[in-house]
């Protein structure tokens, strides 16, 4: 069969030749070429060398599926990688809601067409607010590292200061982002950590903090998985010097861990990917920023903030942008940073997740994760030549494992694990050379006892 030419592509209704002719006639043009008179010959593309199209959906599907089949998923392999993107269980309802045409394809509608979108994002912020005990949460930004970088620039504007202090246990990627993003406004100084416990070194903090310090930033649980136990002291020292305490937090830990505001945090940030969003090769990240409800904080957000408002009908909820006039949509370069399309659909999804989990679910999942990760640590620590966890602190879902005394590198071990269909922990040897031959392992509620035992047995085979 030969397709009739010209081909009317299913995505382009007006490609129908007679319609096209009719429309051209109506606007007084001879051909579509007439429409590009302002694009001079010199600027024209001569030839665009693209692959031959797969016009039928059937062949397109088959082609893409064949490429995708080259991937090995974390369903086929047992995955112990975390480090900022985490494998948690995604409830079916989360996907059911975020694939709804209405949410999936809405964009910048007004509250009069998109009331549901505004309400869903207001509710997301409200449920995050309960988790964090904070009154202001933004419409999601890109991810945890953008949330942190913006939180720090907010702190700099609020304090009028230009230095930030960050624990050295931060990830190299996040530090890279913060340095690039904060460069015009401030300088980053790193704080030591206790080599035994990983805890931020309070003496290092006291030595480096000054009247120039805008903020002290630490993550809890830290990037290396342990819980910073001295959040209140860190915040107190920051406040004594007129600086803000900025804390990065994993929201899935907050059913059991203290919300950072209770140990003095002024700005809290992090990523909502653990809350019902698939990993997607890192595509599921979405950042949150939360503060108290004070004008001096609210007006420093670059993000959109949705608020509740009355309508002309009694008892009817309306929603709209809070202080929209502060954003770059209105103020251009006079705004605080910038705002644009980021990760709103994941905000709606995280809202669905929190509504499903409720207070009991969040407590149970937090406890389940700690039980499983602790079990894994205990079992791995029994292996010959393996130190686990490296830090003498309480850990949440991630922990550092050291293999110095096994005579094998992390790369060698991970290769051997891969042969057994296991993705071993993230190799930290370049990122944290002081930790020697170490890897960052992640255990969540998806890992059963059998999964963990399989890992431990595989490690035993490899290192002993």
């Amino acid at each position, binding site marked *: 069969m030969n397709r009739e030419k010209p081909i009317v592509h299913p995505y382009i209704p007006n490609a129908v030749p007679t319609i096209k002719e009719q429309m051209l006639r109506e606007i007084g043009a001879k051909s579509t070429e007439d429409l590009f008179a302002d694009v001079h010959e010199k600027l*024209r593309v001569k030839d665009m060398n693209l692959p031959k199209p797969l016009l039928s959906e059937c062949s397109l599907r088959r082609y893409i599926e064949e490429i995708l089949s080259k991937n090995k998923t974390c369903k086929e392999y047992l995955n112990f990688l975390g480090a900022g993107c985490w494998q948690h269980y995604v409830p079916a*309802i989360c996907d059911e809601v975020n694939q709804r045409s209405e949410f999936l394809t809405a964009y910048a509608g007004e509250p009069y067409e998109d009331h549901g979108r505004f309400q869903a994002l207001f509710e997301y912020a409200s449920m995050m607010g309960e988790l964090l005990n904070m009154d*202001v949460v933004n419409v999601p930004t890109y991810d945890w590292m953008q949330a942190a970088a913006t939180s720090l620039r907010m702190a700099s504007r609020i304090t009028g200061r230009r230095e930030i202090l960050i624990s050295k246990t931060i990830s190299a990627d996040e530090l890279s982002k913060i340095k690039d993003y904060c460069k015009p406004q401030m300088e980053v100084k790193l704080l030591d950590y206790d080599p035994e416990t990983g805890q931020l070194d309070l003496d290092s903090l006291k030595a480096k903090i000054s009247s120039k310090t805008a903020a002290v930033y630490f993550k809890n649980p830290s990037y290396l998985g342990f819980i910073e136990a001295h959040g209140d002291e860190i915040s107190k020292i920051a406040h004594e010097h007129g600086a803000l305490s900025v804390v990065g937090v994993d929201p899935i830990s907050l059913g059991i861990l203290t919300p950072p505001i209770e140990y003095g945090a002024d700005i809290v940030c992090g990523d909502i990917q653990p809350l019902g969003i698939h990993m997607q090769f890192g595509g599921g990240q979405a950042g949150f920023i939360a503060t108290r409800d004070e004008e001096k904080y609210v007006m420093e957000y670059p993000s959109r903030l949705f608020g509740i408002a009355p309508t002309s009908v009694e008892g*009817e909820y309306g929603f*709209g942008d*809070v202080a929209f006039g502060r954003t770059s949509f209105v103020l251009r370069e006079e705004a605080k940073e910038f705002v644009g399309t980021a990760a709103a659909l994941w905000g709606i999804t995280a809202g*669905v997740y929190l*509504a499903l989990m409720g207070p009991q679910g969040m407590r149970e999942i937090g406890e389940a994760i700690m039980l499983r990760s602790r079990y894994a640590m*205990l079992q791995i620590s029994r292996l010959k030549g393996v130190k686990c966890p490296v830090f003498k602190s309480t850990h949440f879902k991630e922990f550092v494992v050291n293999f110095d005394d096994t005579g094998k590198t992390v790369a060698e071990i991970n290769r051997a694990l891969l042969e057994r269909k296991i993705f071993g922990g993230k190799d930290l040897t370049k990122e944290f050379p002081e930790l020697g031959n170490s890897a960052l392992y992640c255990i969540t509620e998806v890992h059963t006892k059998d999964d963990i035992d399989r890992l431990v047995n595989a490690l035993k085979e490899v290192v002993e």
Partner: protein
Amino acid sequence: MEDITKKRYANGKPKLKRFHQAKWDEPIIFELSTEGERGILPPEVEDEIKHMVGDVISHIPEKMRRKEPPKLPELAQPRVLRHYLRLSQETLGADLNIDVGQGTCTMKYSPKINEQLARMPQMTELHPLQPEETVQGILEIMYKFEQILKEISGLDKFSFQPGGGSQAIYTNASIIRAYHESRGEADKKTEIITTIFSHPSNAACARTAGFRVITIYPSEDGYPDIEALKAAVSEHTAGLMITNPEDTGIFNPKIEEFVKIVHEVGGLCAYDQANTNGILGITRAKEAGFDLCHFNLHKAFSAPHGCGGPAVGAVGATKELAEFLPIPVIEFDGDRYYLDYNRPKSIGKVRSWYGVAPVVLKAYAWVMSLGAEGLREVSEIAVLNNNYLLKKMLEIPGVSAPYAKGKRRVEQVRYSWEKLAKDTGVHSEDIGIRAADFGVHYWTSHHPWIVPEPCTLEPTESYSKTELDEYAEIIKHVANEAYTNPEIVKTAPHNSTIHRIDHAPLDDPSQWAITWRAYRRKVSKEHE
């Protein structure tokens, strides 16, 4: 039976639809809470683990143990689903409406096949740190799509890391800064030039990256003013960051000269290609001499907008500037695809990992369905649709299309209701709210409103002639109402989920409520 069909037409044309949006009058989710209901149960921990580990909570340092459970709502699963499905019905979405009213945003059809592909476990269940050999499929897709964007732009290397158009613009500003730093000229190269009809993020991101911003206004005919550019450039010019066609839908025919003028003073030129949907296969960044560009894969390349993301702003650079792109970049050695981190001059990380990979996949599938001819057809039809709608719009009383008289527009037009507002007291915003009564979206425009009482319409290639006619008929009907019965427009919406909002509390720190808890504390105390 009477002829029902006949009653749906007047003068041979279909009558306006008697639309009414879903109205569930849905409570806030906290109001639906019933103590003890459960939405989902996390997997239970095996007894062996519990016995071995014991009480794990007691291991948490006392000060770090949460005392009060979070006051989240408690709802059974079907109730959560119903609530969110109702909210979804109270959202219009591009799939449901003739979404030509959100100019500058290219609200085109997002093919469902691409969504299904992106939701396969071979995409969703990938961890970004998996060994490269286990993610060859997605790396192949990203690499192949990079080759496609290289053809479409003429530039030499792409990064998919930025998570949206604005973050891509920021990335370009950061690259411009890194370039001048690498030449020891950071202290001298302090200014970025943009135009007022370029997206506001060009100005905002340049400032965020530490630059002073100079904004060029158009000359009287609406074309970017080359004399103003000549007056603005100096030894301090770090770069030019602009869209073309601009948000007015006017293509700057002197773009090559603009680029040249900036190059002559040692500046770089970054092309914000948010408005690329009318020029695919027609003209490129390369021919105009740009050093950098970015494409929004969630706009012209069809990935859905998701209420505002997830998204990708793909950043392209010439050979000379490729070394500054964020790390890592994707390479192919003829045998395997891999991530290259060894790029000492890179600006580092802009977003985590490698960008939103499923959005890249959707964009790739879209181009693979169209090919080179198809892409050109997309642009030709998008531009034809726009000029057709322009003609229909100009038949409506009270509206005009300022600037570039008698010239064609590219993919969108910025209209003005100045006359209608003067004649009737009905403003552009009112027209938009009233349009919602007929089931379509309509947006005013970005600020500042250089064009008075503006709206920006961008029909893309996705709507049929009859749909464009329907949209124009709706706007015409509303404009006629403004002249004959302005109250109905000023008190709109009438068929929406909600009625006119009182915005005052949203700008009042003592009243605004960004979360339910803040609302309860500030406004709703008496219910406690």
